[in-house]
């Protein structure tokens, strides 16, 4: 579990996060949602240790990362997998080499063992056929799946996903969402997903943290989200006619 306690963060004197506290649950998909510019990416990057926070605590199973030295932080980072918005695959390496990269850097396995592990992860995301292709030769959805395979190759305890569905069609988005959720449950990972895709919220939102203007405005799950009474959240989630109809149907018990 990751505990976020009273976190404040500012850039060049401009405060972006205000006293945020939240629990991110182990073995669940934890979603950070909010409008563009609300501070959700800053929160996720702060939790991941990419940004140093100004004050507060971030505890990874009791270990406070804001007090860690850089070598301790580097060790912790080996327990973290991250899926970036643009996949961030190394474009000079093939899909297989991208997945094997963390193993080559941090494991003592033989080349055969590393290849076996990479194949296993790529099979898990149904991407064995793209083994020897370069990132530029595969589709956006396949790039996301390759990035997921790279993120889980070292058996991480924590998985961060920054807008995993951006730039994908609804069907592929659903596929990626379900894949992330399956992996989260299968390996008991604490998964943190930063998104503003409402389909994802409804599909995999087991623990949702809503950020509004840098403040935590609401926390709950995808069944509780229909009746929050939070105006900002409702304006975000039920902005479209489709979701207004879904909410109405839910309230009528359909």
């Amino acid at each position, binding site marked *: 579990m990751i505990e976020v306690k009273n976190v404040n963060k500012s850039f060049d004197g401009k405060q972006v996060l205000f006293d945020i506290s939240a629990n991110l649950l182990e073995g669940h998909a934890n979603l950070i949602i909010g409008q563009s510019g609300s501070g959700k990416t800053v929160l996720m990057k702060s939790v991941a240790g990419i940004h140093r926070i100004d004050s507060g605590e971030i505890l990874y199973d009791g270990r406070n990362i804001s007090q860690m030295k850089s070598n301790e*932080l580097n060790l912790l980072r080996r327990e973290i997998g991250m899926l970036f918005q643009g996949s961030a695959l190394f474009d000079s390496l093939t899909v297989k080499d991208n997945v094997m990269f963390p193993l080559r*850097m941090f494991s003592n396995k033989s080349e055969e063992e590393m290849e076996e592990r990479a194949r296993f992860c790529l099979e898990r995301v149904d991407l064995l056929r793209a083994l020897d292709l370069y990132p530029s030769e595969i589709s956006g959805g396949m790039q996301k799946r390759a990035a997921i395979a790279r993120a889980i190759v070292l058996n991480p305890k924590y998985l961060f996903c920054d807008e995993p569905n951006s730039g994908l069609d609804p069907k592929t988005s659903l596929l990626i969402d379900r894949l992330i959720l399956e992996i989260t449950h299968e390996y008991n990972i604490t998964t943190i997903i930063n998104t503003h895709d409402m389909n994802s919220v409804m599909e995999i939102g087991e623990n949702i943290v809503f950020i509004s203007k840098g403040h935590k405005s609401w926390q709950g799950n995808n069944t509780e989200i229909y009746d929050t009474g939070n105006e900002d959240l409702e304006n975000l989630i039920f902005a479209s006619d489709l979701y207004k109809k879904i909410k109405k149907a839910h309230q009528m018990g359909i």
Partner: protein
Amino acid sequence: MFGKQYVRELHKQGINSLPIVCIISVFIGAVICIQMRINTESPFLPSQLTGYATRETMILEFSSAILCLILAGKVGSNIASEIGTMRITEQIDALDIMGVNSANYLILPKILAFVTMIPCLVTFSITTGLLGGFGVALFTEMITPMEYEQGIQYSFLPYSIQYSIEKSLVFAFIVTSIASYYGYTVKGGAREVGKASTNAVVNSSVIILLFDVMLTKLLLS
């Protein structure tokens, strides 16, 4: 992994630069030879002077300083744009989040590889430049091959080669470190990557010229 990166960079920055170094050096060697011959055509000056001047120009200035200015364009812009693109596409963030020291992994092999390869490129440039001048002697009637050969052997100081290589080692470090700095610190998008690449070339060229003056004063006087 570091070793592999280093070998890849040796190939990319060194071997891949050979064609451009060869083409430029041959033609500049030929042009220097022609111009020297035209400008020193006098009954009071020996015709061997053409070969001598071509050799001195190639060794002392062209194959170290001018070659590094040219390579600042090729290698420097390549490094700045490659690292800059990795920055804006979050590939560097991906390395950092994995716990990899991204600067060490990306920049150090580039600097070491270019510093390793530059003596080879300088030697290759001197050789091909002198061959360019020899081509002029061979295919024109401006100077005989014998006179050119005598000229390039006349009063040769091996220290000139050492001086040229020492200068180029400093220039190679300047080109790669400045380009890496501009690439690594890019913020924004494609426009900023282009800007970083231009800044890397312009600034490394200016610093090479400054160091060229300082090193010449230090090493030759």
